């Protein structure tokens, strides 16, 4: 018999097990929980809301297709994140936007400042997640692999090791990309940072 248990009350690993048995309700709850984060991440990597949403559609289908092989004792989100990153890269590759660039092996930058505080809340993506427009625009103009690496660090709060794992690159590359990305962001935001400094 169907028990009137609310799927919201289940933890991830229960939802995964149920989804693996083909319970669509459990899967819908997983989407409920993670869709905003997936869409935000995909939007960030792809560089536009449209492309982010489009790729996210594929990500959801792909999660559903592959959930059977997922080990339910593990954390769900890192797996989802990896699927998302891969789907984005796949799409970017299809479009022939080269991911590798000559800036890749850039030397370590000067001591970095952090991105202005970016608060991220998965439940609420219209006010809190809305980065200050200036920062958002600056971020959009970064080359893809800087943008995504910086995003994983500053917003998804991944460690260097986790980023290396997610992107299949070594830690040295992660570090140099982040330094370079921060340097580029600083240059782009120079005017605003200076204005801010004067007033404070």
């Amino acid at each position, binding site marked *: 018999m169907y028990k009137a248990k609310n799927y919201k009350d289940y933890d991830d690993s229960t939802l995964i097990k149920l989804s693996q048995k083909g319970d*669509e309700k459990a899967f*819908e709850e997983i989407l409920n929980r993670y869709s905003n984060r997936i*869409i935000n991440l995909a939007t960030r990597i792809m560089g536009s809301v449209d492309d982010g*949403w489009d790729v996210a559609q594929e990500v959801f*289908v792909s999660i*559903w*297709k592959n959930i059977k092989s997922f080990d339910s004792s593990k954390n769900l989100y890192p797996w989802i994140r990896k699927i998302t990153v891969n789907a984005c890269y796949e799409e970017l590759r299809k479009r022939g936007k080269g991911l590798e660039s000559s800036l890749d092996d850039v030397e370590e930058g000067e001591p970095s400042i952090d991105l202005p505080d970016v608060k991220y809340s998965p439940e*609420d993506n*219209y006010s809190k997640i809305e980065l200050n*427009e200036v920062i958002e625009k600056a971020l959009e103009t970064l080359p893809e692999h800087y943008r995504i690496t910086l995003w994983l660090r500053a917003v998804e709060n991944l460690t260097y090791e986790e980023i290396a794992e997610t992107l299949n690159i070594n830690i040295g590359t992660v570090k140099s990309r982040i330094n370079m990305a921060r340097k580029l962001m600083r240059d782009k935001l120079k005017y605003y940072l200076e204005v801010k400094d004067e007033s404070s």
Partner: protein
Amino acid sequence: MHDVIVVGAGPSGSSSALFLAKRGLDVLIIEKKRLPRYKVCAGGTPRYTFELLDLSPSYFDAFNIEKIKVYYRERVREYSIPSNSIFTVHRDQFDYRLTQLACHNGAELLEGEEVIEIEEENNSLTIKTNLGHKFKSRYLIGADGIGSKIARFIGANFRYRVPLAIQKDIPYKNPEPIISLFMGLVPMGYGWIFPKNRTLSVGLGAYAFSPRKMPQVLSILLKDLNHTNIPLLAHPIAFYRGKRRLANERIVLVGDSAHITDPFSGEGIRNAVKSAKIAEETILECIKKNKPLSIYTEKIYSVMARELFLAWMISGIFYRFQDRIFNLMDRFDMGAILSNLLNERTSYSQIFKKILKFIPFRLL
């Protein structure tokens, strides 16, 4: 000073004005065109929308649809639609009658003037038009459609590409009451023929498809029709793409200006009227309790976001796997499903779960 100024007299603006005027508020509608004005639209409207308006389809001379045919290249499937559940309307008439009715109930209409500027003061708003007129109001409803000035003013930030739709409205004496949908024409979209009173609306909508190539594809659907002198009209569709800020203390967005068009059915009218209803409730509540209108955003999304999100998910599956979805359709009564969806007797959540059973389309 007016209680509420409504910018735009499409379905969202005219129904907002109607609802609020009926409640005895002092409402001014400002519409930049002269009414009745034409709007590119297939005009598909479920009975549910008329119920929200508390008006019968015949009030708008709505055309009752009896069947739906779905084409995939040379193949076709045909379904009957439960009677009196889906209609089409001529938008110039539909919008005009709603506006007239709002005026009958006490709203005032200023047409042929465009709102160009808004100023917020402590307890009121000042709205300026292109002809230099100024009006004061306590609240403002942005019903100015896609590309809304009011949305920009409150920082709603709809910064994304919107899919384009093109359409020709062809005079046609006695069209059969059949909606035809054409899959397999373009990668992420579909074509349609909607019959209306004395008219066939023949159109095509697509994401990520070159607008320049669209007319060529549409000509496939037009080939048996006499359409040489009929203008081809294009208009973007305000599909939902995530939550945004839809209100501030004194301003709310309704209809296309809030980007709440159903990404699966392509319908914007139903949610336009629904949002007008929620705007009405919010404004009345906020007047009573002297609260800011900002809670409107949450109200809209608590009613719509989940369904819009799933509608978008489903549309993604439909568009991506058009051939396989078409094959699956012989198992389902699409006429009943569509009618139930548009009339909100079935939820997208239910449909989504059904579709998941077939992914990755093992059964085909």
